[in-house]
């Protein structure tokens, strides 16, 4: 799995070669620094650990400071591991940029944390339809879930019953996104469609 860590900048739209208006997301991807290289002999599997985003020294634990020192780099905010990173031979302390991994037209996956929506009812949370009628006896039931089960048998509500509750803020992967443009001079990548999360949120792009 090859990938890079980035930050969602926001959305805009561009015109493609057929003149169509295409919605796209601007992601600042990288540059990332290799903070650790794992291999079969020492760790039992092959992986590469990369860091992205500058962190303040006072916000970084001593353990992590030592870890970053070993890679001869400044503290990073986000550190994560990619298994079987085979795109390029990288060693400790090397930087990875967008254009090394992604090219125009690639199909990629984006992983992010969706926007938190707080405590939401079933209509927003589970796409229940609600009641389509405001009259005919409806007083305050338009967005209510309705029945959540039968009576004395089974005499309980089944586990996993969809109800109101905390919504959003989940880790979500969106697959099959197309890379429209790559701007290595500004570390930007233009992804067709939407990417999970709010502006400024971390996004992991995988190929």
């Amino acid at each position, binding site marked *: 799995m090859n990938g890079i860590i980035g930050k969602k900048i*926001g959305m805009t739209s*561009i015109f493609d070669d057929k003149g169509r208006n295409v919605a796209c997301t601007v992601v600042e991807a990288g540059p990332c620094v290799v903070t650790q290289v794992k291999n079969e002999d020492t760790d039992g599997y092959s992986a590469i650990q990369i860091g992205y985003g500058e962190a303040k020294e006072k916000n970084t634990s001593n353990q992590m400071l030592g870890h970053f020192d070993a890679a001869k780099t400044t503290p990073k905010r986000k550190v994560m591991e990619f298994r079987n990173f085979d795109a390029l031979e990288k060693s400790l302390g090397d930087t990875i940029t967008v254009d090394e991994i992604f090219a125009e037209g690639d199909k990629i996956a984006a992983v992010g944390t969706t926007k938190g929506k707080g405590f939401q009812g079933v209509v927003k949370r589970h796409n229940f339809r609600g009641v389509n009628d405001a009259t005919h006896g409806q007083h305050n039931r338009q967005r209510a879930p309705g029945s959540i089960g039968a009576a004395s048998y089974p005499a309980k509500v089944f586990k996993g019953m969809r109800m109101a509750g905390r919504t959003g803020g989940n880790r979500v992967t969106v697959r099959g996104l197309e890379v429209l443009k790559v701007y290595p001079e500004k570390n*930007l990548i233009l992804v067709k469609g939407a990417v999970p999360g709010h502006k400024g949120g971390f996004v992991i792009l995988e190929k």
Partner: protein
Amino acid sequence: MDAIKFVQEQNDQGTKLPDFRPGDNVIVSYRIREGEKERIQDFRGDVLQISGEGLTKTFTVRKMSSGVGVERIFPLNSPLIAELKVTKRGKVRRAKLFYLRGLVGKKARIKERTFRGK
């Protein structure tokens, strides 16, 4: 925000339309592709609003088509707009002319902006 501006500048295809304002009467020549063939369709009406900014700017044109109001939103920077002609300059006092939607016939007219000589 700067990054978005940068992306928009990089992707600006440089379509340049003449200046127009809400209230103007315009003819938009829009390229329409039907299978392999391409033809140009004219849409003539009053500009209700210009909204958005940068590459995503759009404008809304409203016309009366056999008694029914028809509105169409065009991206200002679309390469599919072959030509835009301003036929009449309108004199209006606001930027969004949504009040026209409630008016028909003579009331829905827009006064013409006249230019006195130097």
